């Protein structure tokens, strides 16, 4: 009996280990107990020793890849930004593709004028006519001038926020999130257009609307947190959308403040609509000895 047990132990030590075991042994991922077992085997098996040494050599070769030299982020970003799709080349993000398709189909299928007239600004996201309203407003937005666009987008934003509040009441968190995302998209686009045009928007209207949006967002956020049977995921999704909308509000506000500051002090603006009058000096300003006093036409 004693003799038989010894034979089993000897067989276990002598038996070649599988390729997988030796691979795990070589890369250090084999558990400690099995590792000790392989150690014993390697002392008596030249073939497995050869395999392990080659595997270890391979591990060293595979680890011989240094990290990249440092690249400053501004350089990396400036080159990447130049390759990213230009937002102005893209379709108006405000028009959601599914709504566009549904809206067009509905408008064509039914009497166009009648349906569009029915899809008023008060139409809500859970209405079959909402897609028509969405498309109509998207078309209006694409036709409006850059100067009037931020103001119109803020107005539409207020509508989206109202829609979100009603959808929350109706336990349609998915539609509330979609409307809040639209709100963010509209506000971010308003900030972008404002930055590009540098025109002062209809300040009183926009400022008032932005203030109202801030208050309404706080109300929507509080309503979302009230227990109404929504799941944690639904509450989280609405909360994220509100947070994002708040960030978008801040961006519009920053852009409007920046524009107002430039308008108040045009001399500091890089591009001023009215160039400052040149100083009148007695000395000639050019080779012909002409004075520098501007002509009325200048």
């Amino acid at each position, binding site marked *: 009996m004693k003799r038989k047990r010894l034979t089993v132990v000897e067989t276990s030590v002598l038996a070649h280990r599988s390729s*997988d075991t030796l691979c795990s042994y070589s890369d250090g991922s084999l558990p400690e107990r099995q590792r000790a077992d392989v150690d014993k085997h390697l002392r008596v098996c030249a073939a497995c*020793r*050869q395999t392990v040494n*080659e595997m270890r050599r391979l591990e060293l070769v595979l680890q011989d890849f240094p990290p990249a030299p440092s690249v400053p982020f501004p350089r*990396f*970003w400036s080159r990447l*930004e130049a390759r990213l799709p230009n937002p102005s080349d893209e379709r108006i993000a405000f028009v959601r593709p599914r709504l566009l398709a549904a809206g067009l189909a509905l408008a064509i299928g039914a009497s166009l004028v009648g349906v569009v007239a029915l899809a008023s600004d008060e139409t809500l996201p859970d209405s079959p006519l909402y897609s028509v309203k969405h498309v109509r407003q998207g078309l209006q937005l694409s036709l409006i001038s850059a100067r009037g666009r931020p103001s119109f987008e803020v107005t539409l934003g207020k509508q989206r926020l109202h829609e979100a509040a009603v959808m929350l009441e109706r336990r349609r968190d998915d539609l509330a999130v979609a409307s809040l*995302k639209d709100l*963010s998209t509209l506000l971010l686009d308003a900030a972008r257009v404002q930055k590009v045009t540098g025109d002062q928007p209809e300040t009183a209207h926009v400022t008032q609307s932005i203030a109202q949006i801030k208050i309404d967002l706080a109300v929507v956020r509080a309503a979302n947190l009230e227990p109404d049977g929504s799941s944690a995921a639904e509450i989280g999704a609405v909360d994220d*959308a509100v947070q994002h909308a708040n960030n978008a509000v801040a961006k519009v506000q920053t852009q409007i403040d920046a524009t107002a500051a430039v308008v108040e002090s045009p001399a500091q603006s890089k591009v001023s609509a009215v160039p400052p009058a040149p100083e009148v000096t007695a000395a000639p300003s050019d080779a012909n000895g002409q004075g520098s006093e501007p002509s009325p036409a200048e």
Partner: protein
Amino acid sequence: MARDVEERQLIAASLAGDDDAFRQLVERHYRIVLNVAFRAFGSEAAAEDCAQDVFIKVHQRLGSYRADTPFIHWLHRVAANTVTDALRRRRADVSLESLVHEAPSESGDPAEAAARHEQRKAVRQAMASLPGRLRDAIVLQVFHELSYQEIAQVLEIPLGTVMSRLHNAKRLLRARLGGYVEVPAAAIGANNQ
């Protein structure tokens, strides 16, 4: 955790067209992607191009990212796909440029630098020649420096499958790299005495 929440917000903002949010997202991760690309190509210029390709794909496909998995896992997957595609395309392309940009050897010996360059080139080519699934796993381990567990999470496969793929990949690599990994029998005897 706070970082995850912040990252989710950056992703949501990027999806809504906020360029600044996307810039912040890139700034958080560009070094990881650059390192992966540099290990894969050995050239600073090629690595930067490839890393930018990765972020362009991220920008285009951000909508397909599922928020129930960590963003970094998704990013590793996009980066691994981009790198392996580029490696496949460049298999036959032996870049002279990479010799110029390859990090100098620690000893500063030109002969050693050349030998290392040749070895890395051979490893890259051998990795590029592997079957798709094995290549993905080994790229994540070697170029991305991920653990078995992390590879399992990135590829969304069981840990045992990762181990099996890596072992098979290394078995093939040993065979294809021949002289770079062979150890003379005499040396083994000496090492193990």
